[in-house]
């Protein structure tokens, strides 16, 4: 048995997607008696004049029945003697393209329907493009409604040519083309006597036999950390799903973005101890030494991922509101999330012709290549190399809507300019010179990025801004980088590892974190106490509320919003 196959059906509206799946279920005797009875009852009231309307099996929402269309993706589960299937039946209307993309992100294979009487339509091209974008590698083009054109071979050949052009344009591989009729059942599960000229397999037979296992997988191990498991003081495990490769007890792993290494002390697969872990498993990993690992980190072995603050990506815009350049969205990638700004639309792709067009705005259902800049550095990779580190969503901060999804085509390497403070061996990211403004249109607080230029020892710092005012003597503690910066007379006096740092009794310089928040510490004893509580407390607001004062040197101003004017 060739494993589970997840596939989608897509194509233009009325191309017969729901009918096709309904027919497979019906033919394969995969319906329960009560479902079959309900189908007969509902068909009587339906538009096919009492003949069985197989689409009714899938269109489950009331609005779908009322309008006779598919609005949202429906999942169906069936098993034949050869294989188990999950099929996502997706809507054909352009308006619901994003729901079709949801199905595509889930599938290994796409069945794209084309109406034989109409040929390849804009929506066919759009769906093929989106399937490719979402990472689908296997395609079946089902030329449907062959009954309407009297099973004409010549017409089928014409459509095959149209499909070939599309396939070349997008660069699809692994393509099968099948002539069929979903309503009449030709070449769906049974070879059609009406098309003796077609020598290929039926749709079901192709689905049953195709191998979609990713043969390229297995190079290197990576696991985005979802959470830290701490049942007591003796155990600290990192939980997440193994996305590729294998891991053994005793292996040396590198934690990104910090780059720290440690050995694997123990591995649990779904709660049971094991010596070796494989791709797909839900793991808990214990490391040999105490290093700083939290949600958003990636545990790796032999993979080429990058730490970055800037990515180039193909995105599909899914929100009713258009993309706003320079506007802040939340980017979610793997288990990390950060504030992101689309800096530039490099080009928009015409879904019909594939042409690359200049664009300054991106609307719902459009695809574009964009440069995105990130507030915090994240671990990322190209989508084709490591899918989970190369795919993301953008979330609107006001509506919380999932506004876009995207795949990374290029990851820009970090340079010193991406850091706020640098010395020979220490690089620190900070936000203490960001301005805090109350955004009158959104009624929430926005941050505007300050001016950082890889400040180093001897540089004078911009300690006073619109919305902040720091003293001339201050020590900045960078917990993520395990480092500290001493500022004296407004200049950087020293950048040093945190292990070498102690409270300065000469200047009694106050302490700030890299956000510019005052750390409520006045001597070495308090500093030691704070650091003892840090590992345990850093994920809880109560810890920060106890130790930090956000308003000592910072305040918030109203500001005219430049992109709203």
């Amino acid at each position, binding site marked *: 048995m060739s494993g*589970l196959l997840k596939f989608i059906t897509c194509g233009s509206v009325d191309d017969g997607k729901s009918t096709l799946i309904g027919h497979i279920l019906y033919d394969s005797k995969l319906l329960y008696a009560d479902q079959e009875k309900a189908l007969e009852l509902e068909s009587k009231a339906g538009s096919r004049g009492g003949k069985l309307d197989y689409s009714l099996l899938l269109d489950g929402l009331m609005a779908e029945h009322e309008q006779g269309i598919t609005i949202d993706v429906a999942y169906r589960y069936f098993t034949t003697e050869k294989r188990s299937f999950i099929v996502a039946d997706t809507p054909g209307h352009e308006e619901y393209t994003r729901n079709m993309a949801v199905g595509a992100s889930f599938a290994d294979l796409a069945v794209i329907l084309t109406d034989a009487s109409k040929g390849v339509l804009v929506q066919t091209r759009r769906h093929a493009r989106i399937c490719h974008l979402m990472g689908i590698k296997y395609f079946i083009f089902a030329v449907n409604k062959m009954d309407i054109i009297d099973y004409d071979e010549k017409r089928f050949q014409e459509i095959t040519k149209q499909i070939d052009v599309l396939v070349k344009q997008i660069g699809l591989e692994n393509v099968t083309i099948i002539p069929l009729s979903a309503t009449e059942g030709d070449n769906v599960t049974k070879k059609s006597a009406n098309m003796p000229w077609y020598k290929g397999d039926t749709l079901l037979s192709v689905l049953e036999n195709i191998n979609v296992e990713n043969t390229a997988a297995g190079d290197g191990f990576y696991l985005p950390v979802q959470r830290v498991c701490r049942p007591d003081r003796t155990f600290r495990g990192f939980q997440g799903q193994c996305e590729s490769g294998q891991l053994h007890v005793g292996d040396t792993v590198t934690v990104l973005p910090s780059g720290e290494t440690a050995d694997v002390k123990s591995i649990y697969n779904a709660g049971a101890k094991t010596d070796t872990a494989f791709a797909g498993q839900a793991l808990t990993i214990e490391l040999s030494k105490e290093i700083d690992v939290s949600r958003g980190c990636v545990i790796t072995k032999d993979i080429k991922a990058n730490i970055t603050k800037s990515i180039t990506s193909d995105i599909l815009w*899914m929100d009713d509101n258009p993309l706003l350049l320079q506007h802040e969205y939340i980017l979610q990638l793997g*288990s990390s999330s950060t504030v992101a700004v689309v800096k530039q639309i490099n080009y928009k792709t015409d879904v019909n012709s594939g042409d690359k067009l200049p664009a300054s705005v991106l609307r719902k259902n459009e695809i574009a290549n964009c440069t995105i800049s990130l507030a915090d550095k994240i671990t990322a990779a190209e989508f084709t190399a490591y899918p989970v580190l190369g795919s993301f969503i953008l979330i609107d901060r006001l509506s*919380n809507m999932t506004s876009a999804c995207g795949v990374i085509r290029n990851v820009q390497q970090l340079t010193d300019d991406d850091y706020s403070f640098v010395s020979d061996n220490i690089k620190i990211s900070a936000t203490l010179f960001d301005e805090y403004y109350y955004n009158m249109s959104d009624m929430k607080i926005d941050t505007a990025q300050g001016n950082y230029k890889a400040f180093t020892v001897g540089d004078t710092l911009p300690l006073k801004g619109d919305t902040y005012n720091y003293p001339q003597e201050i020590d900045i503690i960078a917990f993520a980088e395990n480092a500290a910066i001493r500022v004296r007379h407004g200049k950087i006096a020293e950048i040093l590892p945190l292990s070498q740092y102690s409270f300065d009794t000469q200047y009694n310089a106050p302490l700030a974190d890299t956000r510019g928040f005052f750390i409520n510490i006045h001597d070495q004893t308090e500093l030691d106490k704070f650091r003892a509580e840090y590992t345990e407390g850093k994920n809880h607001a109560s810890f920060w509320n106890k130790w930090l004062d956000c308003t000592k040197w910072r305040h918030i101003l109203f500001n005219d919003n430049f992109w709203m004017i």
Partner: protein
Amino acid sequence: MLSHLDKLEAEAIYIIREVAAVCEKPVMLYSIGKDSSVMLHLALKAFYPEKPPFPFLHIDTTWKFHDMIAFRDRIAKEHGITMLKYTNQDGVARGINPFDHGAAYTDIMKTQALKQALKKYGFTAAFGGGRRDEEKSRAKERIFSFRNEAQVWDPKNQRPEMWKLYNPRIKKGESMRVFPISNWTEKDIWQYIKRENIEIVPLYFAKVRPIIRRDGMIIMVDDDRLKLRPGEKITNEKVRFRTLGCYPLTGGFVSEADTLDKIIEETLQAVTSERASRAIDKDSIGSMERRKREGYF
């Protein structure tokens, strides 16, 4: 290569961990049924050696099978988990019952009770054991399913859910319903119960039980609140239940399946879908969607 069940298990654990990591105040709904037994089992595995970092919640309509309540209390104790119980006391005071109040009973004692409980404790995310193979509107629901302030589901405007990037963001008062076993079928559930040796309520196994036949359904006489209608007679027959809920609303069927293997075999050959044995789903086409939009799981 992972087996089909391994993949489903890993997917569910990923989702459960994700909720624990990113949602402020999660709870796992526990209905005492087989799907809940699987969910509890997955939660125990997901966090091991830690206990699940959230409580469990049972909405008690006061009409559950007595075997179910005993099972619930014992399992909670054995696993050392927090089991919250909630009953709509207003409904109890008004004497709402499944015999006299029909659909209103389900609404008041289940849907309203659930909404009250979630509000009372301020839960921001609730795990449910819903599966997409159960019913057509469920087949369309996201894994992270957004509920507005009134706890209403808007099926026409669901957030896109790409790959396994779940968007958990909500505003105050809004919440998430999360379905980690969305992609499991009834067959998967049974095979997983067998593989993992998961304990389930004995009512799933065929046994001689006191029953009556009413409106085409086999109803077990679980206590003396079931009043016989003229002509009805209690008989003892070997029956079992495919789903468990309130005993007056849960249809049993005659069966010889008294082991897991026999149940699995029977399930594979079944000619009625699982929900057909639940009286509440038969009311009308689209009834489940309507109830879900009103806040039912």
